Each structure stands twice: as C-alpha cells, then as structure tokens.
C-alpha cells in the first residue's frame, strides 16, 4: 500500500505520544476501537482554566493511517476550546492526510476519540459541580 507523505511523517515522527493522568479532573480520556478490529485509539486532553485544551496525548494500536490520524488529532485539538474541538470532522483528517477510501475508518475513529475525550472531561466536570 502506498502511503501519503504526511502519513509517513506522522508515523515516523508521531506528535504527542504519551499519557496524561486519567484520574485528574482536568483531563478527559477517550478510548475507542477494539483489538479484534485491529484499531484502538486512546486520546487524552488537558483542559485549562479558560476552557482551552492546553495539552493532548495519544496512544494508538493500529495501522500507519490510524497512528497518523490520531497524531494529527492531538495537534489539531491543542489550543482549541472544547466547542471548537468538537467541530473537527473526520473528513478534514481524510483531506489533510490524503487517506485512501480503505483507510477512512481510521479518521472516523480519530473523530470518535476526540468526542469521547471531550465527553469524559465534561462528565468529570459535571460530577464536580453536582
């Protein structure tokens, strides 16, 4: 399979690999996918006082396109507000990385991971204020 240069770049030099403390109330964690499907993404965000995402980390089990999609997602959410991050669409990722049709599910998974991390953060905050 031929990979786009951007996919190869993210695969070779993935941005923001790592983990944030998942019990921290300012951290939202999203884990999506399943090992038997061949893709699992974990995306974490740390939200600052102004509701802006200050830090994002990921770990991914999956093909090069899945790694690139999640690496790109961490780059894109950083510096965005929660509302702005929720606007990121998988089609944007497909376009940026030139993903072939057979790899579109990787971008869907990355969008799902962002949403899951946002939802986890919100659930934690709701619990604190309740």
């Amino acid at each position, binding site marked *: 399979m031929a990979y786009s240069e951007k996919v190869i770049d993210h*695969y070779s030099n993935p941005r923001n*690999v790592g983990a944030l403390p998942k019990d921290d109330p300012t951290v939202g964690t999203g884990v999506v996918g399943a090992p038997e499907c061949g893709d699992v993404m974990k995306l974490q965000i740390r939200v600052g006082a102004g509701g802006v995402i200050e830090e994002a980390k990921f770990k991914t*089990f999956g093909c090069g396109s899945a790694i690139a999609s999640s690496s790109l997602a961490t780059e894109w959410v950083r510096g965005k507000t929660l509302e702005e991050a929720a606007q990121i669409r998988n089609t944007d990722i497909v376009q940026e990385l030139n993903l072939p049709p057979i790899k579109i599910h990787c971008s869907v998974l990355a969008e799902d991971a962002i949403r899951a991390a946002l939802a986890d953060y919100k659930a934690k905050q709701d619990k604190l204020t309740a």
Partner: protein
Amino acid sequence: MAVKGVAHMYRDKGDHLITVATEHKAVLDAHHALEREGFRTTFLGVGPDGLVDLDELKAAITDQTILVSVMAVNNEIGVVQPLAEIGKICKERGVLFFCDAAQAVGKIPLNVEELGIDILAFTAHKMYGPKGIGALWVRRKAPRVRLEPLLHGGGHERGLRSGTLAVPLIVAFGEAAEIAQREMAEESARILALRTRLYHGLQAKLEHIHLNGSWEHRAPGSLNVSFAYVEGESLLMGISDIAVSSGSACTSASLEPSYVLKALGVGDELAHTSIRFGIGRFNTEDEIDYTIGRVVEVVNRLRDMSPLWEMVQEGIDLRTVSWTGH
C-alpha cells in the same frame, strides 16, 4: 482446473468434495463455484498447529465423495500437512487425492508414489522460475485419473489445456526445477538454520510473541509470528526495507484478519499482529540478524505507543475491557 476437472468428470460417481479451511483461495473459490452448481463440500478444520485431523477426514468421507484436496505447504503459515497419511486414507476409500504443492515442490522432498497423490499442482515462480507457468501432474495408472478440461479447442496437452505452449517458460521451469532438486538437501538445511536463528533471535529479545502453526511440521523457510499489541501493517511500515507481509499477500486488499489464522483458533486481536517471514535461496545470516534488530526496534517503538501494551503493563486484562467495536 484440478478440482473442477475432477468434479465435472466424476459427477456420476458422486457430488461430495472434501477440502480444508486453510487452503489457498484458488482452491476454496473453486469449491465455492462448484457448490453453486450443486456439489457439496466439507471444509475440514485444523488444530492449533494448523494440521488436519485424520480422524475427522476419515469421518467426512462418504460413498458420494469423489475428491479430497489438501495442500502440501500452507502459503501463509508454512505448515506441512500429513500427506502420506492422507494419501493412504484416500486410497483405502477409493477417493482421488489432489495436492496443491505450489509452496512445496523444490523445497521439500515430494514423491507422489510414496504419498499416494493422484493430482499434484505446482508452479515455477515459487522455485525461482518465471512467473506465468505452472504444472499439473495427473496420475495415468492405478488409477488413471481423467479431468474435464476448462478450455476447449485445439487439443494441446492431450486435450486437457488447449492453447499454444509457452516454450521459453517451459524450458525455464524445467531448469528451475533441476536446480531446486540438485540443491534441495543442502539448501533446506541452510534455510532451516536461518529460520531457527530468526525465531530464536526474536524470542530472546521480545516477550509476548506467538508462533502460528506447528514448528516441527513446517517448510524450512516459513515463519509466521504474532507480535501481540502491535498492529501488523504498522509494523510492516516500520520495516519497509525488509520484504515481509502481514497475512497472505493474496488477500491484502482486504483489512480482514487472516482466515487461515482464524481456522487455527488464533483470536482476531492476535491475527491483526501477525507477520509472515519467508526465507529463501538468496538470504544470508547477516540479513537475518539485521531483520531481528529492525523488528525488535520497531516492535518496541510501536508498543511504547500502543494503548493495549500500556494496559497490559498496568495489569489490566484486555478481555475484561468493554471495547467499542466498529
């Protein structure tokens, strides 16, 4: 040609065929095509070692069975089926035995008389010959096997496969076979040593790796290993200077995990992490050592960014996690 040729020629004798779930798609798809014509097929399962259960084969043969098709060496995992035992069972029950030996001829000794094979298929490009030519050996006596041709017209090759013969390919095929036969004993010992060096080298430096298929009943140059928690395609991408494949190259257009590994009982999560190594005539010990080093380096890098590896290190049992399948 062999499967369809026998089925169509012996239709009056019976309508039942037997093959194995881990056969090459070329054989499986021929059976599926015949099923659409009204034939019935039993697809035998295999054990965790990838081998056919002989008792299961015996039990599957009925008075309607006309053909048993079992490959010699599996194209994906390299295991060698118990051909002599299968041949013996077929002979006792009066059923023809077709063996797809594309991965075996020129690599392991095969004697159709000793193994009781009635039809043997093999190909030039798997023994360093040219692409575009194969051969079908068909038994002429005890019993005389007859095949219904797929192509009609011209009567070449005793009417079995009409069409002008590709003489240059035939000559090259013959030469390739002669070289393979001459060097087989020495080459297979050398290649087996390389395969052993590769697997032991990987085992010494990586935990959580799994051999797929039997170690003993295996062609010398074949190795199929699962590297748990590292997805196969991403591993391939990291070792792109080494020619290996994830699963079978013939089905790489799909993202489905290997049907062969599934038949062995390998779970989908491990099947996604499998790599097929093929060692051949032109590989050296240095290349094996280089491969070990590169694979270990990339597996470690990818495990460091694998959420599954992280969970396992934290002591989480992945089977207890509720995943969101997609």
